[in-house]
């Protein structure tokens, strides 16, 4: 039974319930509506970018450039619409244009990563790490490290008003979920993650599917940047810089495999929920920052251990 529970896709969700039930009565504010709303709002950007990472992980890859894409698209969108020296200050179309450019820029950077990995056969780790460095450098150089504020209220509402933030995140997640579970792309991606060579022999267009998976990851990072920039009311050249461990950690805790071929957006939702709730509960318990870091690190390590056990179970 324990074996089945641990292997179950609801295991992480059960841990979330255990976390709330175990700590709720002893942690003032944890179960309050206000706090749970905060948790939900906090998890949406992470959810979006972790869902994109899940797509890449299923195909057996990894995208380390997501945080750089968040920062780049954040300042690009902010520069278009800022009321202080922007390219379209006060223009009625500034917000949709800026949001569209943020998504397009994320998609194109992701696609460039994907093309280098799929057609040039370069290592995903090296390509996305290099992309992280180059895009971060470009962002800081172009902005001279300066934040861009004075953004239109209509844009801030996208990240700050729960209904609009939920609509952006929820709509994107449904699209990615449908893409992974109901389309031929999803079946091909799983096949590539299980064994790329076999998939190629079976007629799967491996390079195109791989490249598209990175483009989806970039697009998700652009969408996450819309929410984060709106919440912080500022386009920042270092936005999301420290999120990478949470992004990969949430996907792996949810059950996506670092070895490819296994993953699901709904599992990633559980992983993000667990990581965000854990962070929130530990903060509300008043634990030291360093203790929180150690606990989160241990939980992610445990999830990676489970992933290895699952994989060894499949191969034995």
């Amino acid at each position, binding site marked *: 039974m*324990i*074996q089945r*529970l*641990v*292997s179950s896709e609801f295991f992480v969700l059960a*841990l979330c319930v*255990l*976390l709330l039930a*175990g*700590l709720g*009565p*002893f*942690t*003032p*504010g944890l179960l*309050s509506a*206000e*706090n749970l709303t*905060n948790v939900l709002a*906090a998890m949406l*950007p992470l959810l979006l970018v972790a869902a994109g990472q899940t797509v890449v992980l299923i195909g057996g890859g990894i995208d380390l450039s997501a945080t750089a894409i968040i920062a780049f698209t954040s300042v690009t969108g902010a520069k278009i619409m800022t009321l202080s020296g922007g390219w379209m200050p006060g223009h009625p179309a500034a917000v949709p244009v800026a949001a569209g450019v943020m998504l397009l820029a994320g998609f194109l950077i992701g696609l460039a990563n994907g093309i280098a990995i799929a057609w040039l056969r370069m290592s995903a780790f090296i390509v996305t790490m290099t992309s992280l460095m180059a895009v971060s450098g470009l962002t*800081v150089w172009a902005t001279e*490290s*300066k*934040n861009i*504020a004075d953004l239109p209220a209509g844009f801030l509402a996208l990240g*700050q008003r729960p209904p609009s933030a939920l609509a952006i995140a929820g709509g994107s997640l449904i699209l990615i979920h449908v893409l992974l579970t109901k389309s031929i792309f999803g079946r091909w991606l799983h096949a590539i993650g299980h064994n790329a060579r076999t998939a190629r022999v079976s007629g799967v267009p491996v390079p195109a599917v791989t490249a598209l998976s990175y483009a989806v990851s970039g697009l998700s990072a652009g969408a996450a940047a819309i929410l*984060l920039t709106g*919440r*912080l*009311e*500022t386009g*920042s*050249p*270092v*936005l*999301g*810089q*420290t*999120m990478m461990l949470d992004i990969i950690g949430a996907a792996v805790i949810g059950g996506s495999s670092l070895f490819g071929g296994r993953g699901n957006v709904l599992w990633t939702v559980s992983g993000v929920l667990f990581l965000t709730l854990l*962070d*929130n*509960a*530990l*903060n*509300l*318990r*008043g*634990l*030291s*920052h360093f203790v929180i870091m150690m*606990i989160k690190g*241990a*939980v992610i390590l*445990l999830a990676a*251990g489970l992933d290895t*056990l699952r994989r*060894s*179970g499949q191969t*034995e």
Partner: protein
Amino acid sequence: MKSSRRSILLPLCAAPLLFLAGCGPSAPKKPVIGVSFETLQTEFWVAGYDAIKKECAAQGYDVAEAVADGDAGKQLEQIKSFITRKVDGIIMVPKDAKTCVPMIKAANTAGIPIVLFNRGADGGPDIRTTAVVADNIGLTKLTVEHMIAEARKTGRKHTAAILLGDLGDLNGMARRDGAEAALSAAPDVVEVVARIPTEWNQEKAQAGVVNALQAHPEIDFIFTSSDFLFPSITSALKSAGKYHKAGEPGHVILGGFDGDATAWRMLQDGYLDATGVQDVYFEAKQSVQAIADQRAGKTPAPSILDPGFVIHRGNMAEKSSQMWGTQGAK
């Protein structure tokens, strides 16, 4: 075997959660101040954090701690967690002057006093907060003026490099402006040939100084916007064979800002000419007092200035007891 390994994993997952229920402080009876630092990765912030904790204890407050690791989004969640916990006040070191604005607004809306420690906000008149900050421009200007006076004594013109901080941080900008103001008044003594952006990052600082020394081997005057970058500077100077004590041939005139333990050791050893010392204890005391004043219905000033002081070889015996870095050096 597989089954037994997995059987071990479930209790391993569940036990920490149950254990945590018993962790953390018991229900506090004293009022609580939430303290959110952008980072604790430099000596200055650790000293500031310790000073605030001591001052809170002295004024009868408990402390709730949060560190954002340089992530403004995470800091926003931490501030909202403080608000959910209904803390009695918030002291924050913001990531930068802009991204803290929605955090201040959230605290304002909740009616919780919020004070910014050592970094100001750039949010206009819509936000209510008190910023306790060093006189970054004035103190930097005094520090660089002392360095210029040392340069003038040599009777020759010097070539300078300035290490800039994160220019999204008001402190970084103010220190740049203070240094530039002093240097522009002495073009006959010092010429600036390199302005090195560091974004408060030691690796970038070291690479920047190495590049500057290669491009301009004649550099003999370096000011850094923060003392925590001195290890990067000394490493680059040593590699270039230019790290010498004051009075020795080839000495590079060095100055900084903060007053940390490294600066104190360099000053004692004769390598450092001057540094602007922020009075961490003054800033901590004023921050906690500003919370207490707001809770008592008073309205503190939007900005409380720490004048700080310049320490150099001429006054180090007299001023060392006020320099927070001497505590870390012990």
